[in-house]
């Protein structure tokens, strides 16, 4: 289910394009984060 406003987003860990691992919980620890899902493939 897609997390909705007021709910808790499920945590995840992914590598970025340079190979650095990021956990969602850490990305938002210091302040709000805009998370953009994009189609890619271009």
């Amino acid at each position: 289910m897609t997390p909705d406003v007021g709910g808790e987003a499920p945590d995840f860990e992914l590598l970025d394009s340079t190979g650095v691992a990021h956990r969602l919980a850490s990305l938002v620890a210091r302040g709000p984060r805009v998370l953009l899902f994009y189609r890619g493939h271009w």
Partner: protein
Amino acid sequence: MAEYGRAYEEIRAAGADVVALSVDTQARSEAVRAQLALPYPVLCDPARTVVRAWDLHNAREMGGIAVPAVFVIGPDRCVRYRSIDSTRDRVATDGVLRFLRGEARGKELGRERVQAGLGEFARAIANAVRRGLRTPHE
């Protein structure tokens, strides 16, 4: 993507930050990040783990890609805003910025038509030729 790169300093000034996510491989994601000079991290989900868990997996196109969407996630992973978008229509970047500044509520953010420019179109074709149309599953 590019719009949030251009608005990045204002987003940072509002106390927020940005991260992007797609199913693209690291090589392709890094090419996009470099081409657009994005100042924020670009996450790679080639196994489609996160897009599936978040129910944002468009299985019908190009071997499975992410549904375009914008979230604002606060500390403790609380979802403050979400917009599930399409290829033609998305939440206005300026609206998200106003939301981050506390100037607008989630339901008041405008929409904008997505129009790929000619340069973007040419780049998409060049990248498809170079890397193929499907992103391999890992």
